[in-house]
């Protein structure tokens, strides 16, 4: 399954990636699976996607939970808790 992933704010800086296209195996089916898959890249990825790190996730620009199923071709976004206003 192909996905587009965006990263914002502190996360974008730490990973030094703004956006990427990824191809994941069928076993990666939920948001939680994708987070674990990104964490498995090791190094700064393991650090930033560690379970204790507070991250929000959006799919198709809607905030989603860890158990939400991934949709092929979707735009995902990972970001820290928001601080606008």
């Amino acid at each position: 399954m192909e996905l587009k992933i965006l990263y914002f704010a502190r996360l974008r800086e730490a990973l030094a990636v703004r956006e990427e296209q990824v191809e994941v195996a069928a076993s990666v089916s939920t948001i939680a699976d994708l987070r674990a898959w990104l964490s498995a890249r090791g190094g700064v990825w393991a650090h930033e996607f560690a379970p204790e790190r507070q991250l929000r996730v959006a799919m198709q620009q809607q905030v989603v939970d860890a158990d939400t199923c991934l949709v092929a071709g979707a735009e995902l976004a990972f970001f820290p808790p928001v601080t606008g206003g």
Partner: protein
Amino acid sequence: MIVVKVQTDDFDLSAEIAQLRHSNGAVGAVVSFVGVVRDLNDGAAVSAMSLEHYPGMTEQSITTIVEQAQARWSIFDALVIHRVGDLLPLDQIVLVAVTSAHRGEAFQACEFIMDYLKTQAPFWKKEQTPTGARWVDARVTDDSAASRWTQACVENNSTIDD
């Protein structure tokens, strides 16, 4: 009508409100909130700030928040302007303005929109301080400000006459 603008430019409160209530004789109340950049945060002097956002999702999430306010209170129109990019202390960051027939509805809707915007709209602040740049951490007090609207939904149905 719901108007949401995400822009680098400053805004003129008087001009925006004049436009919002333009020739609507049913409007009896306009409530607005303007957020500005402070020169001190979490004990450090702030010399500048930059605001990042998620284009597309930002506008959509604010529109959803305003729709929730419209479903909950009897309001006419709402305007949200949020600036992005580089800002300095004293600069205006955000404007929320709501019109209604009576003040009670507009006060509550304006505060609700602002509380939800702070916890749900995808904006991130980065501050310049004497010890370097730092990303602002989300505040627990903002989460509790937003969560009180889910606890108080029954009491807030009373109306206040102007």
